[in-house]
């Protein structure tokens, strides 16, 4: 048990250091993407965003598996908690697609409103 304890202590320290470093890198990536680090240079948004998203997922993995000890739990417990979370993948894709569709349709609705406005006086006359 004593050995376990020092081992666990080491893992906790290692995990927190990794989490801190990843966070700093994430912030640097965000600032580089917006042109703060290299004067006037805006890194490609898609690349920066996917980097930051994958790093956040890695952070989440570290927190759940090391800090929350999911790694050491029974497989059934792990599956019953983690598998439902996978539903969110589709939720994210579907809703962001939906949001984008709203944006595109806003233009269509706007144009249609204009058409109706120009036609209304003709009808009333």
């Amino acid at each position, binding site marked *: *048990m*004593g050995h376990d*304890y020092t081992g*666990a*202590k080491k893992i*906790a*320290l290692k995990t*927190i250091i990794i*989490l*801190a470093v990843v*966070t*700093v890198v*994430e*912030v640097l*990536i*965000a*600032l580089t993407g*917006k042109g*703060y680090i290299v004067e006037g240079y805006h890194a490609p948004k898609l690349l920066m*965003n996917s980097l*930051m*998203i994958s790093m*956040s997922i890695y*952070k*989440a993995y570290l*927190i*759940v598996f090391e*800090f*929350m000890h999911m790694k050491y*739990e*029974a497989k*059934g*417990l792990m599956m*019953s*908690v983690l598998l*439902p*979370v996978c539903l*969110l993948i589709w*939720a*994210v894709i579907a*809703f*962001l697609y*939906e*949001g*984008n569709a*709203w*944006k595109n349709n*806003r233009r269509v609705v706007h144009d249609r409103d204009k058409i109706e406005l120009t036609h209304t006086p003709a009808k009333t006359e």
Partner: protein
Amino acid sequence: MATDTLDQKHTELSTDNGSWEGGEYPFKVGYGKLMIWYFLLSDAFTFAGFLIAYGTLRFSTPTWPVPDYVFRLFPFLDGSHPLLFVTFMTFVLLFSSFTMIRAVQEGHRENRRGIVIWMFLTILGGLGFLGCQAWEWTTLIGKEHMSLTTNPFGAHTEAGIYLGPDGKQSEESFEAHTSYIIHKMDFSADHEAAGHATEGEHAGTGHATEGEHKEEAGAEGGHGGHAYAAPGDYPDAKVDERGYIHRKYIVASGENAGKVMSENFGPKAFGALFFFITGFHGFHVFSGVLFLLTILVNVMGGVYVARRNRNEMVEKIGLYWHFVDLVWVFVFLVFYLL
């Protein structure tokens, strides 16, 4: 205290006070621990719902306030420090997550003194985070005049040139996608000040407002500002009834080139989403601090020693606390980084 730590996992479980009556421990954990996992799963869905709503609304509008512009102030420092303060907040929460895991480890080896010290540090971290959030909210509401329904942070869709006080083009131009903040004049405060002052001192009052406004403008990087006496249409800006100053500019690119426009409020949903989601997270931190305090008092009173389950209660609040940190990872990503 550390003498009975050699107990095997299942003998501890068998001395548990019998929540699982079937003789076998489903998933080899106590009832409470399994249930906190399922609670956290449901809570994860709640937060995911909120964050997905944020993403959907963000995708549905042509512009969105840029986080490194919105979150650029730092207490006691002048100028623009994009994302510095929220990074600091993240570190406070990460640190408290580390002290929490140390408390759980001390709990496993029945070291009551260790639990108390590390849990106490965790509570300090939680309170520190809440303090940071209080400052962040105060700045947004009090200084930058953001509210649930008014969002002074916007971004230009086209390039343009601001108009000067004479209604002509000024030196100040901007590119498309440049962020701006709509400043606010406090007319009601002006009237009170004017009421106290004699007529001869009116010019002085106006000057004070100007100075204040300039200071505010300086904090966000040099949008020239000057005082307006009352709401109305000025050559260089429109001032609405609530005192928000919508600066005018000539569009320099796109299909509207050459037109004079005034700055509009940013997407309305931003304020509501920000206050609701960070508020909901902050409320989790707040209740977490209360739970931590309760359990800390119980640990000091030796309540969990009697249960002989290696301080499982400390482990359970630990799970909750790490979850709060986990949620922050995604709030941080969605609100501040992307």
